[in-house]
């Protein structure tokens, strides 16, 4: 055959598929136009809802008693993100006013119905909303305590959800609703769940009662090790240093995990712990040595000067720099001493670290 023709079954098949693809392209073009139409219509509806409700929300946040109708489910779902945005942007008495208003117009019920939705976005909105409205506390006339307990019971299982963001949002909301109840239940999870980033957890815990947090952490401490112990110690950094130093000592005693040692050394700040800190200046891991040098800067006395000077020649840059900074911040060391040290030290890398720190101190 010199040239193929469309009578060839293979080429015929190619033709059919090309025609199907062409038809599909036109269908998708129509779908795109339709989606845009639906989106535009939804946006118009949203704009009209916002035009009506924005002034009411603003007045409610300002503390006015605003007369407003109950929201229907569709309006409520469209309004929820904006209510949440406004809620996150205000502080003080406005928060309670806005929460009470949300309860009066039925936003709470709408959020609760979304909680059962399979859609992650809806669940996140619902969780966040309940966290705000539920935390407004006792609407005694509406059996507020019972309602809060019901929300707590609904949200608690969500903290075990595999979805990181949903579970974190649920944890955050529970802490808002009732942190006394939530802390003993959530902190063990926080310590175990590696997918719950410390960056998200620390701001949540900062608002909690530190005395209760201390009790909860103390209760968990004997039962954890490895990465869980590291996470516990990172959380413990929220608490005052004098309350956590003994935990750090305990962790240093029982663990050889580098991450745990580094986290424990962060908590060291008592001069009586200087002998313990010194022990880690020669640790094989530079991450541990850097924490040890930094901690030594907090607890050192005059006899630690040679140790910090020796750390200026550490093979790891970060250890050298932290040693130089630790030296510069010792209360009994002045700039002249550092300058003389810079001239006398033979190690080039030590000199570089000192020069940098001297310049930093000068420009500070």
């Amino acid at each position, binding site marked *: 055959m010199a040239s193929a023709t469309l009578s060839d079954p293979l080429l015929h098949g*190619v033709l059919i598929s090309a025609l199907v693809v062409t038809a599909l392209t036109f269908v998708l073009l129509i*779908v795109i*136009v339709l989606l845009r139409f639906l989106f535009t219509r939804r946006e118009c509806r949203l704009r009209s809802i916002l035009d009506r409700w924005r002034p009411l929300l603003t007045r409610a946040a300002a503390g006015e008693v605003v007369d407003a109708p109950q929201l229907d489910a569709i309006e409520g779902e469209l309004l929820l993100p904006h209510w949440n945005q406004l809620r996150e942007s205000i502080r003080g008495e406005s928060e309670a006013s806005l929460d009470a208003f949300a309860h009066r117009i039925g936003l709470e019920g709408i959020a609760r119905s979304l909680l059962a939705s399979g859609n992650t976005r809806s669940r996140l909105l619902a969780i966040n909303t309940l966290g705000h409205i539920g935390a407004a506390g006792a609407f005694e006339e509406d059996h507020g305590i019972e309602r809060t307990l019901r929300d707590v019971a609904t949200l608690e299982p969500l903290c075990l959800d595999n979805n990181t963001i949903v579970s974190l*949002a649920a944890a955050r909301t529970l802490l808002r609703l009732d942190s006394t109840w939530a802390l003993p239940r959530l902190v063990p999870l926080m310590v175990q769940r590696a*997918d719950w*980033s410390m960056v998200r957890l620390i701001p949540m815990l900062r608002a909690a009662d530190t005395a209760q947090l201390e009790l909860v952490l103390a209760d968990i401490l004997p039962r954890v090790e490895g990465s869980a112990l590291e996470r516990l110690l990172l959380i413990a950094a929220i608490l005052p240093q004098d309350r956590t130093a003994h935990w750090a000592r305990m962790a240093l005693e029982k663990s050889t995990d580098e991450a745990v040692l580094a986290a424990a050394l962060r908590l060291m700040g008592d001069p009586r712990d200087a002998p313990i800190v010194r022990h880690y200046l020669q640790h094989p891991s530079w991450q541990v040595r850097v924490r040890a040098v930094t901690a030594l800067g907090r607890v050192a006395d005059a006899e630690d000067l040679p140790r910090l000077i020796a750390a200026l020649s550490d093979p790891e840059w970060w250890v050298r720099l932290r040693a130089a900074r630790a030296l510069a911040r010792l209360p009994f060391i002045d700039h002249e001493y550092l300058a003389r040290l810079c001239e006398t030290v033979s190690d080039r890398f030590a000199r570089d670290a000192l020069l940098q720190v001297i310049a930093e101190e000068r420009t500070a």
Partner: protein
Amino acid sequence: MNFPDALYLTQVGFLIYFIAIHSGYLLLNLIALLTMRSYLDQHSLQLPRAYCGLEPPISLLVPAYNEEATITASIRSILQLEYPEYEVVVINDGSRDTTLEVLIAEFRMELFPEAYRQQLDCKPIRGIYRSRLFPNLRLIDKENGGKADALNAGINGARYPLFCAVDADSILQRDSLWRVVEPFLEDPTVIASGGTVRIANGCRVEGGFLTEVGLPGKLLPAFQVVEYLRAFLFGRMGWTALNAVLVISGAFGVFRRDRVIEVGGYRSDCTGEDMELVVRLHRMNRLARRPYRICFVPDPICWTEAPETLKVLKSQRIRWQRGLSESLAMNRGLLFNRHGGAPGWLAMPFMLLFEWVSPLIEVGGYLFMLTGFAFGVVSGEVLALFFLVALSFGMLLSVSALLLEEISFRIYTKPRQLLALLGIVVLENFGYRQLMTYYRLIGLWRWAIGSKASWGTMTRSATWQRNS
């Protein structure tokens, strides 16, 4: 096999190839669609970010070469990014103009005796400066060595565990760092995260930040808007789901500093140093069987100017094809490696077959069909079928990318913008895509013969920077 059979097989072969290449991308779009829904659901609610002191601090590395006209505006806008802790390290790569002097004057830079760590090879450092106005701004002045060399110097001088390579002319959003760093917060195995790069032509930029999205007024950059959606956005989204994304744009990507140093940093003997690094990260982590992830953030968080002339566009596409060829060749140990996983068994073969060799086959297909028809060895029916396949599948791919955009970010909100995009989606298949294929073929040829690579000159209008 006789000549007629060979002819027949050749015709069928080209047809099947065209179907296969577009089907491959359609499959990626389908994966991207499934991944996108889940991503949008989970990231639709921006929970407030209260700083806690544990956010990973980032070193932004900004290589600069002969940027005297625009560097000040670029750095000023980068310094306005919203993120708890970051430093900006500008690397003056031996500029021959007054880039260094401008930086020193505008930001009151002074020489600083910094303890510089040479962990990656780079050209000699002439001096390190700190700004008296902005404590988090530093400048490394070095001898010229190219972008990769400059980035290596920046990595050496970076203080923080994450670094972000940023092009000086990239337009970021205030929360761009937050967005691109999120994968690192959610998954401790993430070692690199790339941001989506969108076309800034036609957009309004004020104070170095994008304030209004628009479409380019010229056809050439408008074609690139659709092309970026098709090839660079949803394709990469698909690969991310498989942990096989092979390219993170050099315009905006965050990396774990220690893991990049481990693999030797950027290669300065390579045109596409950004892609080569990512492929090498895959290779070395796969072969070492270390858990890792390389992600891609689909949100539009970085904008860049697209070439507006054919000359500049040609130079860019030739360079990209060379970069692709070098990256694949330099990391061929990953291909079909026992431990290669999705990158070695799916992404690399896909890239080889549908990106690397495709210009040769596509241009070959067009030439064969047209020449064959002229000489009577290809029937009119087959020629028509060939063009029908090329155009219909090409359009479907572009339309599916537009559909994904409509479902996800919908950044072109005006009805006339949508209409323009719909028109471009059809029009780009009549000449533009074929021209880009031809440019890529030139790039492939130049790589094959080992000719010296050059960046050429990117003529930027960048009026927003001059007006800032």
